[in-house]
């Protein structure tokens, strides 16, 4: 598992993330939720070594983040951020192939190709595998990037707002895939997500943030509660249970 202790990040005099603790266990999906500016993306960034923290530490498996060699870490941890604006002409397959880089350094073997094709079918995009990225819709492009992360075949997967640009059907398919990756393949999947209902339905753990601090963290049932949600989002919530899953209603406040 990954354990964050006391993580902080400052820009100038302002703390963007302050003293954050969290645990990301393997075999489970953890969702990081909170309003704009809560520090969710920054927290994810620091945990995945994209950004340097100003205080605190990250424990990945049994080694501290600082002790990991980046090349070696890439075989265990994959991260995908929000904006993916690529200028070069790649086909979907070529993009997904990059996911194998930590393992094969660009020289793809037959085993690699199998993994790549599996990732493509896992995300349901085999039918567009030879299309150029620029020909795809935003949602299809997003799926391609997620397939690349899946092809990287890591124990830990970090995704920053993976459902951006995705329509309802694709969003559900992605969340189902992520849940499957965690439950069946024992990966730790960590996502920053805006839609708390998707978070409530598909994740096992929630980390709720506000103003840079972790306000509440734990199992879904312990966090998706009206008091907690209202504290974070500052609007009235009504939480119901439908088909065994918690559903938040906040639209008509």
């Amino acid at each position, binding site marked *: 598992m990954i354990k964050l202790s006391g993580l902080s990040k400052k820009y100038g005099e302002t703390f963007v993330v302050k003293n954050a603790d969290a645990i990301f266990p393997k075999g489970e999906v953890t969702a990081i939720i909170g309003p704009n500016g809560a520090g969710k993306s920054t927290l994810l960034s620091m945990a995945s070594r994209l950004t340097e923290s100003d205080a605190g530490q990250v424990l990945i498996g049994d080694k501290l983040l600082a002790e990991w060699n980046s090349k070696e870490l890439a075989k265990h941890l994959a991260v995908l951020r929000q904006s993916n604006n690529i200028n070069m002409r*790649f086909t979907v397959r070529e993009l997904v192939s990059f996911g194998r880089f930590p393992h094969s350094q*660009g020289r793809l073997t037959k085993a690699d190709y199998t993994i790549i094709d599996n990732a493509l079918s896992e995300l349901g995009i085999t039918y567009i595998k030879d299309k150029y990225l620029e020909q795809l819709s935003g949602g299809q492009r997003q799926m391609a990037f997620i397939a690349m992360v899946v092809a990287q075949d890591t124990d830990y997967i970090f995704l920053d707002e993976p459902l951006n640009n995705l329509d309802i059907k694709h969003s559900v398919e992605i969340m189902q895939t992520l849940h499957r990756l965690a439950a069946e393949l024992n990966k730790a999947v960590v996502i920053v997500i805006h839609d708390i209902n998707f978070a409530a339905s598909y994740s096992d753990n929630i980390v709720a943030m506000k103003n840079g601090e972790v306000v509440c963290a734990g199992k879904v049932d312990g966090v998706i509660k009206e008091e907690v949600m209202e504290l974070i989002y500052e609007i009235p919530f009504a939480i119901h249970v439908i088909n065994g899953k918690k559903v938040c209603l906040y639209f008509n406040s």
Partner: protein
Amino acid sequence: MRDRIKISVLVFACLGIISWFIGQGLTVDNYQFFLKLRFPKVLAIVLAAIAISASSLVFQTITNNRILTPSILGFDSLYLLIQVLIVVGFGTTSVLVIDAIPNFLLSTTVMIGFSLLLFHFYFKRGSSNIFTLLLIGVVCGSLFTSMAGFLTMLVDPNEFAVIERAMFASFNNINAALVYWCTIPLVLCFAYLFLSSRKLDVLWLGQDNATSLGINTKRLTKQMMVVITIMVAIATALVGPVLFFGLITVSLTREIFDRFQHNFLIIASSLLAVFFLVSGQWFVEKVLTFQTTISVIINLVGGSYFLLLLLRNKIN
């Protein structure tokens, strides 16, 4: 594969133009003389072409930008300043002016030394935005130009004529020994770039994705910048200010070929560069009969092409 066909055509074109350039007008009587004259020149052209285009291509990958070339770091202004300082400080009869080799050694040492200093200061700050580095280079370039201009005011027309020659890149008076010596470092640098191709490919995905895939982007950038600097410094000291040549070849390469792999692109752009420079030099010698230097043509053509690129929004 269409790209495969294109590059085969390019290989033949290069071999053809080189053979033509070397072999034109040779007879049994004069071949020894002409070969001794032409071979180092062609070698210099080939080396310069490869150095400039390979370094420009990798530079564009690192800066994630299709408009910039290493020349923006101010090498050309620094080179000119060095030449001016030599003339002003040592006079036109100094060995540094007359003999190409000491001049070359001094120029490359200063240029590489300056860049390394710049990189050291810059990378130590922990900043990861390369544009800042480029702007600093630009500022330095402007300073060098001011200083060179100031010193130019102090020299008489004879001395200025010597300086003026350094303002334009030229293959017309290449020192053969120098060319042979340059081959080794340039080949080594080129090999280094070529062997880093796969890592550079990953950079196409952006900094964050590259980091996620295990690439130490900061270290890679630093390494590439050092190698690029050495190649550009050597090319500039060997041939003169090279300004836009890298821009033309790299842009054309990207337009003509579809592939994204660096190992392919580096070779393709090198071949294209060799073809253009050899034909350009032939043009200067046979058609324009040495009335001008090749750098003037390059700058005009390259400059116009650059403007065209911008207008057609073929960048980013």
